[in-house]
Structure formats: C-alpha cells, structure tokens
C-alpha cells in the first residue's frame, strides 16, 4: 500500500489553497533496467478532489509528472473546518484516498 499523501489545505482569502504531496514512482516507461529491458510505465493517471463530499476537481496525468508528485489548486468558497479529500488512481488500477481539514 502506498505511503499516505500529505495534504495541506489552508484558508486564504475567500477560498482554500490545497497542496498535496503524493507518494508514487511515476515510471515513464522510457527507462531500461540493468538487463536492457524497458521498465514498464507506472504512473498516476487520474486525480480527483472533493470538498465536503462534493467533487470539485479532476485531472489526468501522464508519466511526465515528476516522481512523488506535487499538486496545488485552490477551492473557491472553502473555509476552515471543511473537509478536502484527494484520490488518485494509477494505470495499474491501484488507488488511494487521503483526507485533510482546511485550517
């Protein structure tokens, strides 16, 4: 099971800035191992976030997103105490969701 995501959601102005650090290899499929075989692509393909249970954001990522991806976005109208959940799914079908509270 992958390491938990680190999510920081801070109220700023009328919304909340959410910063997420995910733990994932993000293998591009371009590298070869010691034997010369291509290491298959393994990367987060979809990301979604919810605010108090309502979906606010989705994204599709390719292998060019850096290893242990960072993500920052701003939810309008979010205030301290609101719950933000971030979910990722990778191209092998694995998925992970973590939650944070806006501070």
């Amino acid at each position, binding site marked *: 099971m992958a390491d938990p995501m680190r999510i920081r959601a801070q109220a700023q102005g009328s919304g909340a800035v959410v910063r997420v650090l995910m733990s994932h290899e993000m293998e*591009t499929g371009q590298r070869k191992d010691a034997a010369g075989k291509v290491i298959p692509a393994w990367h987060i393909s*979809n990301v*979604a976030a919810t605010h108090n249970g309502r979906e606010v954001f989705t994204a*599709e990522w390719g292998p060019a*997103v850096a290893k242990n991806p*960072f993500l920052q*976005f701003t939810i309008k109208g979010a205030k301290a105490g609101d719950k933000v959940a971030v*979910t990722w799914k990778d191209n092998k079908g694995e998925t992970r969701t973590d939650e944070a509270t806006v501070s």
Partner: protein
Amino acid sequence: MQTRRDTLKQGVAVAGAMGAGTLFTGTAHAFNKNAFEAKSVQDAVKALGGTSLTESTDVTITGPDIAENGAVVPIGAATGMAGVKHLALLVEKNPNALVAVFNVNPAVESNFSTRAKMGQSSDVYAVAIAQDGKAYFAKKEVKVTLGGCGG
C-alpha cells in the same frame, strides 16, 4: 407506514451513496490515451478536443527560467478566461508532449501547479481549451541543466 417524505429521503441517500462510489467509473474520468501518447503539442491539443491553437495573454504559464533538475520542474497553468473546460500543461521536447490535463470546475480556481519531468531544455506550454473547442496557449522557455527522463 413509510411516508413519501421518508421515501424521498431514502432515495437521496441511495443516490448519494451511488454517486460517491462512482468517482472514477464515469467516462469523464477515463484516461485520454491518445492525448498522452501524442508527440507534438498540436497533436495533443487536437486529441483533447482543441480545434484551433492561438497564443493568448489570458493564459499564464509559470515555471523557472532554469531548472537545476529536469526530473522535478515546478510548472503551473492559470487562466482568467471563463468557459474553459481543460487546462493542460505540455513540454514541447518531451517524448510525449502532454504532461497533465486539469479539468476546470466552477468550484476551483483555474490555477494549477505541479512538478514535471523535462528531458531537455524546451518550451513549456499552458493550454486552455474552451467549451467551444478553441484552444489558447501561453509558453515559456525553461532551460534544463540535467535532463529528467532517466536516459
């Protein structure tokens, strides 16, 4: 006896539970393979549904002038335009140009940042694709001292 109010409440609860469970099964969350396998910026934008591609000052691309480590380059895309469906980040000289696509939703600001891998010094594009398919871009040259694709 179950009143109509109770039935409605039950219905909403079931719908809510179903909605939460389908976060990744709708076609809206499918992975756009064609776009991510496109080699050039133009092909990727076309695969995302963009019909034209014009430069615009309404789209902003943020990134460093020089990236010390091509494996981790912080880049961001933002736009002030209304009616934008997707905000995409692309690196022109990467093996596949498209890095990420953010699907704009009225609940979030059209402003996203992440970190990307860059194989070599290249132009980085932020492309905003509007509801009508027109695409607008901004680009910035990012020099890379150490390439990030592991080659």
